[in-house]
């Protein structure tokens, strides 16, 4: 059975307090008709995965600007695998180009780097979920 609305968890793993990007993308996704939940700052991988399960989201958006993506993204992906959560994970923030292939190997669908138009993220999510969601 297809769902009506895409549900997104916008998450801030780690300790960095920069959530301008997360909040701007959250507003863009909401204006594109998605339901968006924002975790707030300073979330552990466990808290993020718990929230994703609890809210039954289709997408998790991870935003990180401190450089801790190498430690935190693998932990989140591992927890999702252990708990068999079927979800699309995307990422954004200050992430050097050379790190992106490694993150994709972990199963992260896409990393959006600075300068990405908001529409690109909206399109990417809708394209990925076109078989799962009715209204897309």
């Amino acid at each position: 059975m297809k769902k009506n609305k895409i549900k997104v968890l916008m998450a801030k793993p780690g300790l960095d307090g920069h959530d301008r990007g997360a909040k701007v993308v959250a507003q863009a996704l909401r204006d594109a008709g998605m339901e968006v939940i924002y975790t707030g700052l300073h979330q552990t991988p466990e808290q993020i995965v718990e929230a994703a399960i609890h809210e039954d989201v289709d997408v998790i958006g991870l935003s990180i600007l401190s450089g801790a993506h190498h430690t935190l993204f693998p932990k989140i992906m591992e927890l999702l695998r252990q708990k068999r959560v079927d979800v699309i994970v995307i990422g954004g923030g200050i992430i050097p180009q050379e790190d992106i292939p490694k993150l994709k190997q972990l199963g992260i669908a896409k990393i959006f780097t600075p300068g990405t138009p908001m529409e690109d993220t909206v399109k990417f999510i809708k394209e990925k979920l076109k078989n799962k969601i009715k209204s897309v």
Partner: protein
Amino acid sequence: MLRKTLERVPEQYEEFQTLSGIPVERLFLPEQKDYLYDLGFPGEYPYIRGVHATGYRGRLWTMRQYAGYGTAKDTNQRYKYLLKQGQTGLSVAFDLPTQLGYDSDHPLADGEVGKVGAAIDSLQDMEILFSGIPLDKVTTSMTINAPANVLLAMYISVAAKQGIAQQKLGGTVQNDIFKEYVARGNYIFPPEPSIRLVTEIFEYCAKNMQKWNSISISGYHMREAGSTAVQEVAFTLANGAAYIEAALQRGLGIDQFAPRVSFFFNSHMDLFEEIAKFRAARRMWARIMRERYEAKDPRSWMLRFHTQTAGCSLTAQQPENNIARATLEALAAVLGGTQSLHTNSYDEAYATPTEKAVQIALRTQQIIGYESEVVNTIDPLAGSYFVEWLTDEIEEQAMKYIEQIQSMGMGEYPMLRGVINGIESGFFQKEISGAAYRYQQQVDNGDRIVVGVNKFKIEEEDFEKTLRIDEVTQSAQVESLKKLRKNRDNKKVHDALEQLRKAAEGNENLMYPMIKCAGAYATIGEICDIMRLVFGEYKERTEF
């Protein structure tokens, strides 16, 4: 004449706007002004023309690059490099676990140790951070807020070990918790106990450290979070007024602490808007302090500020272009009369800057200071029809916001209550994230041009010359922390922490027991855990 020109070459937009969206006319004409009331002279009330009577003719601004990464030893080397390159003041960047009061081996610190700043767990790391740097010869700014008291206590202790009395120390502790709730996100405790900690630093510095700036009230991070120039000034000065009221509530005399209150602003891409913003902020603060809070000491009226160029204006695309951006932004800060300046490095959309990138950033300031000749006369844009109009406009719009914030509070200290209510209700956060979203929409639909991002794009080469903080940093830091815990006098640590707990439960100024904790090599995590126990932790609203 005009009509003919417009027919031949129509204007590019229906309405022209500043970066923050203030409509700008084609041409500005002289306005009636009461020169002495509206402008006055440099070094005199209302200080719109600057806080020094001779501007930069006596001394240039302090060139102060915010720096820190890896271990205390890595950062100490970077400081020595910067001082050798002609930098005139230090500015410490701490890593996130330090800023949030966690030791490097705390589970939440995993992956964050030594990133975005130096890892400091105890006095031992602070000793290494400043080794070979005589603290009576440099001034040091520390970007530390929730645990500001702990780091200040450690700094005083390092100086004591170097044989330097605290009265001689010059520098700044950021100590601005309100903007952490509003925009920067590095808070630990709820507002009430946090305000106690802030005003305890005011009180301690008034008594013991007369050359030290006890706060740096910051608009910088609100602007980075997407605020407009008007919001930046309005929210910063509102926070400033709230701190003044908090200190008065604690029983401090206004002229005891207000002369050591300093500010920190962003300098963004709109040259004239930024210059007008700095000028407006100076006049507004002078009037607030003199007329509203009846401060008598002229030093209490002066808005002295540090400036950093806008990190959010840096682009990952064609990163070398960021050198031009930092130049324009730094020029605005200088023409606006800043007391100290940090210029961002061109590679910071990718990572912590390399030595080479930092050198170019510092050279940019030196070129403005020594080659451009803009420093020869004071407040050179004064009297520009446009700049004076824009200064008035920013002041008027910002005052409206300040009145609105005041109306959200009540009682004897309405600005203090208004700001706390504004934080807890999410007012500031929503105003700012709304402005950030509108700006991004303008960029995405092409109404705003960002060179290399939505116009003049090229096929990019991989940008790889970034500074990497390796995993060894974290394991080395954790190793030395474990050693410290084993080798120190743990009875002394325990007693000092116990004294701190008792003081926190009462009303005593915590700076005194904290200096004892620092001296006993208690860690930042241990000290903050005591306060977490007594004060609780802050939980933010997660609306956007």
